[in-house]
């Protein structure tokens, strides 16, 4: 599909598409709206907490709410998702307590939750590595079902436009293709990899990368939650049915800095942001809800109230996160006992006991 799939215009106009569409209830639509408002608030709150010194770093998702909520809500409980470090919205849809995400960026853990509880792997910071994990996991799904049967559930791997240049990501395409693995590669093309514009990673649209590996590549308006939901559902269904991998390029924009350590004014111009502000993922749903009557001001006020409550809870929970015990660094180096770690841990306890803590 060479054009951008869109089901809801920035003005809140509903479009239809012969192949990709969603039949969505008012209830569901309000749910998507709520999700997006809440994760945006989560993001804003985390950002504020970083500024207050409560977090070491925060990679904001601002502008990518629709891409993440649309993709996340396309998943079923038995599907499995592999995120980067920016998928706070997807984490939300997988039922990961946002406090765990704060915990990671506060530096009290390098993980924060049990991936199997949520079908949601831990954030991957080394760019692209998770795409191969996703393919391997999908090969496991195939094997659980039997190689001659439809896999039944799907796997999705998130990555960014920058990541598309990593060898591992391209190896993942190779592996997925030759194994016909039930995996969806979901690229949030937010136009930037820190300071590098898309043109440093590719000279043609990213969704076309898939063709070269023999997989369908699809492009969707990443700021349109309905279109993302529709296309991701279709791709996951494909995977579940045994029809193999595909690549979705969600065309979106990183409205914020790369992380709280970044200063984007050094490398991009305000006018670009202005343009993308007009395409805000939440505004268009709000407009559509109001226009169709599927949601009213009262509903929106209620969601804002929920957001306020959540933010307050987050703030408190973040501050209450206990520092890990020094011992924690020895606790899980290995799954089975290991002599050296035990020795070093013993030494450490004695050392700390001797009041060096």
């Amino acid at each position: 599909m060479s054009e951008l799939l869109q089901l809801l215009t920035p003005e809140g106009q509903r479009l239809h598409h012969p192949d990709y569409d969603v039949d969505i209830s008012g209830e569901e639509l309000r749910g998507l709206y709520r999700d997006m408002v809440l994760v945006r608030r989560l993001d804003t709150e985390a950002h504020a907490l970083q500024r207050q010194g409560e977090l070491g770093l925060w990679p904001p998702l601002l502008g990518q709410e629709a891409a993440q909520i649309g993709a996340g809500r396309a998943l079923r409980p038995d599907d499995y998702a592999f995120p980067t470090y920016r998928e706070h919205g997807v984490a939300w849809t997988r039922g990961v307590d946002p406090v765990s995400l704060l915990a990671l960026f506060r530096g009290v853990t390098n993980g924060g939750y049990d991936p199997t509880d949520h079908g949601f792997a831990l954030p991957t910071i080394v760019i692209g590595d998770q795409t191969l994990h996703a393919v391997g996991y999908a090969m496991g799904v195939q094997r659980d079902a039997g190689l001659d049967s439809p896999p039944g559930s799907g796997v999705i791997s998130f990555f960014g436009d920058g990541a598309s240049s990593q060898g591992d990501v391209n190896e993942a395409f190779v592996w997925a293709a030759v194994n016909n693995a039930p995996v969806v590669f979901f690229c949030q093309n937010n136009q930037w990899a820190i300071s590098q514009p898309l043109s440093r990673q590719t000279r043609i649209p990213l969704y076309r990368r898939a063709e070269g590996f023999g997989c369908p590549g699809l492009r969707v308006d990443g700021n349109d939650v309905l279109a993302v939901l529709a296309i991701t559902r279709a791709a996951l269904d494909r995977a579940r049915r045994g029809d193999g991998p595909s690549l979705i390029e969600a065309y979106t924009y990183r409205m914020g800095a790369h992380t709280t350590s970044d200063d984007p004014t050094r490398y991009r111009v305000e006018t670009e942001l202005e343009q993308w502000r007009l395409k805000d993922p939440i505004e268009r749903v709000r407009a559509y809800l109001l226009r169709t009557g599927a949601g009213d001001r009262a509903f929106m006020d209620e969601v804002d109230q929920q957001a306020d409550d959540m933010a307050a809870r987050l703030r408190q929970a973040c501050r209450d996160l206990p520092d890990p015990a020094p011992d924690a660094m020895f606790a899980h180096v290995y799954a089975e006992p290991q002599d050296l770690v035990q020795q070093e841990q013993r030494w450490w306890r004695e050392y700390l006991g001797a009041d060096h803590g």
Partner: protein
Amino acid sequence: MGEPVTLAAALNQALHDAMDDDPKVLVMGEDVGRLGGVFRVTEGLHAKHTDARVIDTPLSESGIVGAAIGLAMRGYRPVCEIQFDGFVFPAFDQITTQLAKMHARSDGATRLPVTIRIPYGGGIGAVEHHSESPEAYFAHTAGLRIVTCSHARDGYQMLRQAITCDDPVIFLEPKRRYWDKAELGDVGEGLFQSRVVRAGGDVTVVCYGPMVRTCLEVAGLAHEEDGLSLEVIDLRSLSPLDLGPVFDSVARTGRAIVVHEAPVFGGLGAEIATRISEKCFFSLEAPVLRVGAPHAPYPPSKLEHHYLPDVDRILDAVDTVRGM
């Protein structure tokens, strides 16, 4: 006990038995299927278990380890083959940043019981990148376990144990010993224990993998020619190190040498020597000497006998350490 078998055959048997015992065990790598691996260590597995459990992979080592991680997350126990030592480096990122760290990162929630088999070491007259000893890179990486066998009996049992271990294990196979034969049978030690393979009182010789046979030859010669008694210890596990028997030995001999094929500089011998020097400081009568390769890339094969430690060079070190 039965007939003596080669190390390659013993490893093959271990894979057959491990796959029979546990349906979650998978074998994956380049040419491991119909070909049975370039050293035939995976022979017959594909015929028995098909693509479902024996996966001929694309030519991509990062892919092999990365996909194995995903399979392990899904509950499988992949046994990966890296075709030769020199080809593990494209997978270095996945091994170092993901495989080794995932368990700690997840605060213990995610176990990655992945075994990575690597034929390693030189002495087979091969072209570049087919003769290296990369153990030090892995040993310095917390979260990995590194073991190496020196003969068929250990090979069989250690590989079985490695596959059942819930941590990632780098399983180094001394390729020039693939064709050496031994009887299979029970092994006393656990996977992470070293073993005194020859008792002696004059000098402690610490070695592993391909060098064990060489050091036993040295001990034999030293005994015959000079009446010296060398105590030879096969470390078997390189991470963790089991140096208890080494310390005991050095407490008696007062002299030790450490032998490996890898370059001495920054090699595992440094770790071993340092620990010996620390623990046996007052019993050492001479510094611990290291015998290994020089700080140089693996040379063309016509020079490898100069590059690799051999009986003469080890004997020379024994003389030196005794003369100090």
